[in-house]
């Protein structure tokens, strides 16, 4: 650990910049893969006989890179920025940070190659190759899961050092609670999901744990990191403290309690024992407490500041993400009932839901963070405000259209299944909606391409930027105001 804290800057801006850039590189690869995959559904796939470009494998690259490439890189960038500022201490080691950065990107590349070579692991959202033949210990590829684990451990120590060192400070801000729990949950969830169903729990037992894994990834990794970052960036940008400390507390502990119990809602009406399914359903409805408290907290914070939606691009991204968050979670509470499950399970509806939350909520938050941080890490003003606006509208309209079309498509196939419509008839009925889905995907890609172009042009040709001065002061005021206002 470095002793020369006077010369070492508090925040390592290079790491923030590196993770942001790679987040968007990964996002472009992922959405191109997604677009390609969608062409299979419209009978327009360009490479039908190339083994390593088979649609099924390309799909895996899409899902894996959006989560582990885009969202993770984006959140790590935000965390590198906010943790040192909140704790008043730098991260554990800049060298580890740089090593971790490169190691992660190389791992993601190897992950994508492994998936295209057919070495995936049969755990949904955990398809990163184990390196072993399924269910055995016969090596058949580089153990990506092991690499991810090692890098994750390094990152946990990296951020736990300042979080732990700051534990006796007078005020511990809500972001710090969310990040502390997010890291330990990340470790537990990842190990549980990648080990137990693969080698120790078959059938329904394995599926129960696999369901826990899928939801814990969303609820115990992505959600705490996401909201933690929102609790930091929104007050900093609005220069206003969060509306209510008590709502923060309730939202936090309700998330910790209810979220982990949701898992089995991914396998309702399956051979998993009913009592477990009922627990998951009740918990999924109980989670609305969390959702409501955080959303109310942030919208009341916004009250009186709605002009920021127009003036501040990051705020726009954050708040539309929160609207989608509220929508997705409310949808989830309804989806989890057996009544809804009969029709929507296994259908496109779920795909629409997943896209709205992964991209429309967390993706948008990563984008908002990048819009806020990019001038600060490059020292340059945004190259084009126009492109920022285009990006927003293309992505917002794109994701909402995708959500809508898949919802309708899902309902059609769900009811068709119940009405014993012949399978091929049902597939044909979905065709038009899949075309719309591909078009919506194009809008999303266009937005992201514009944004990446904007980022590069800013980095190379942007005008000078210097608004870093008053930020730290306002942050300390905000933290103090937040905890006193309880």
């Amino acid at each position, binding site marked *: 650990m470095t002793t020369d804290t006077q010369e070492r800057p508090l925040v390592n801006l290079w790491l923030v910049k590196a993770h942001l850039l790679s987040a968007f590189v990964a996002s472009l690869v992922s959405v191109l893969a997604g677009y390609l995959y969608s062409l299979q*559904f419209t*009978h327009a*796939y360009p490479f*039908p*006989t190339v*083994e390593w470009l088979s649609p*099924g*494998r390309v*799909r895996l690259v899409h899902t894996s890179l959006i989560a582990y490439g885009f969202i993770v890189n984006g959140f790590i960038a935000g965390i590198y920025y906010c943790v040192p500022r909140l704790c008043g201490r730098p991260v554990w080691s800049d060298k580890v940070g740089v090593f971790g950065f490169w190691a992660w990107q190389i791992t993601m590349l190897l992950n994508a190659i492994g998936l295209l070579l*057919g070495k*995936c*692991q*049969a*755990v*949904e959202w955990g398809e990163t190759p184990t390196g072993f033949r*399924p*269910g055995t210990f016969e090596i058949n590829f580089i153990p990506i899961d092991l690499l991810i684990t090692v890098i994750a451990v390094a990152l946990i120590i990296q951020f736990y050092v300042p979080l*732990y060192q700051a*534990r006796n400070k007078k005020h511990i801000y*809500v972001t710090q609670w969310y990040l*502390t*729990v997010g890291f*330990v949950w990340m470790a537990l969830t990842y190990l*549980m999901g990648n080990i137990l*169903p*693969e*080698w*120790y*729990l*078959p*059938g*329904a*037992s*394995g*599926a*129960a*744990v*696999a*369901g*826990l894994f899928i939801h814990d990834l969303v609820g115990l990794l992505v959600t705490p990191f996401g909201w933690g970052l929102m609790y930091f960036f929104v007050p900093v940008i609005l220069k206003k403290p969060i509306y209510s400390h008590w709502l923060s507390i309730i939202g936090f502990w309700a998330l*910790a309690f209810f979220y*982990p*119990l949701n898992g*089995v809602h*991914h*396998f309702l009406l*399956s*051979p998993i*024992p009913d*009592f*477990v399914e009922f*627990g998951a359903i009740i918990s999924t409805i109980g989670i609305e407490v969390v959702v409501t408290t955080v959303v109310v907290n942030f919208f009341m914070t916004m009250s009186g500041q709605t002009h920021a939606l127009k003036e501040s691009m990051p705020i726009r991204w954050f708040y539309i993400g929160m609207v989608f968050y509220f929508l997705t979670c409310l949808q989830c509470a309804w989806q989890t009932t*057996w009544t809804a*499950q009969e029709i929507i399970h*296994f*259908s496109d509806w*779920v795909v629409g839901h997943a896209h709205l939350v992964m991209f429309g909520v967390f993706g948008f938050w990563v984008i908002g963070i990048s819009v806020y941080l990019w001038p600060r890490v490059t020292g340059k003003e945004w190259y084009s405000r126009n492109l920022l606006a285009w990006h927003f509208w293309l992505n917002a309209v794109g994701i909402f259209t995708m959500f809508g079309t898949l919802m309708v498509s899902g309902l059609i196939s769900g009811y068709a*299944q119940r*009405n014993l419509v012949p399978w*091929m008839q049902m597939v044909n009925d979905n065709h038009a909606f899949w075309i719309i889905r591909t078009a919506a995907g194009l809008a999303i890609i266009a937005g992201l391409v514009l944004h990446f172009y904007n980022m590069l042009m800013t980095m190379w040709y942007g005008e000078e930027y210097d608004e870093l001065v008053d930020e730290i002061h306002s942050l300390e005021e905000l933290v103090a105001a937040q905890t006193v206002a309880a």
Partner: protein
Amino acid sequence: MERFEGVFIGALVCFAIAFVLSGVLPVMALNKVNNKYLTFEDLSQNVSDEFVELGRDYPEEFMKAYGAFIDKDQRSAVEVALKQLKNDWTKVDEKDLRKRLRKAYAESLQVGRDTYISESCWHCHSQYIRPVAKEEQRWGPVSQPQEYNNALSMPPLWGTRRVGPDLSRQRGVHTNDWHLAHLYEPTATSPNSVMPRYPWFFEGDVEKPGKRALSIVTYLQWLGTTFDQVPEALKKPSKNVEQKAEESK
């Protein structure tokens, strides 16, 4: 309480609670109703008709794929028997043949399952039948946990999306040749299908199935055979199905 130690311990406790309620308890409950876990060796005790038929119809490709898994001194006898099945099957001691094919069958099931995973089949096809939406009428009895307590269900391949139909009870629904044609080019058997093509399972032509083609067909034709692990009481169709059958008389 919202300090480092407090939230850290809180996180562990909440994770543990969920792990017990949604993980440990169901595993314990399932262990009470499940039969013994079936390993690959157990599963290969009853070599399927379809596997033998693949050997009969594609003897060269079959021996190329599985020759190494048949005992050396029995290999030529097996080859002769497979060819004889086409000429005069009454001359073949099938029970003996199947015994010799056990290791090959185990290998075929495992490679078939591994291929199913590699190609992400589990992201478009499900493998459990629910007691709703008339799924019983489409695909057969509602799935029970006893059917999945085996090596081919670890990791479980239940799936979360049905672009294509559920495959829990595929055994005997289609012939081997239908499967081979369908895998080589899905639209040949199912016009307008959105399933991708898998020509790399074959050696240049649909009539020359490679190891992956033979294996995945064996695996698909195996799906549903573990229904015999389900207790009799749970095998009966639900009341709904019987009522509808009565009504339509």
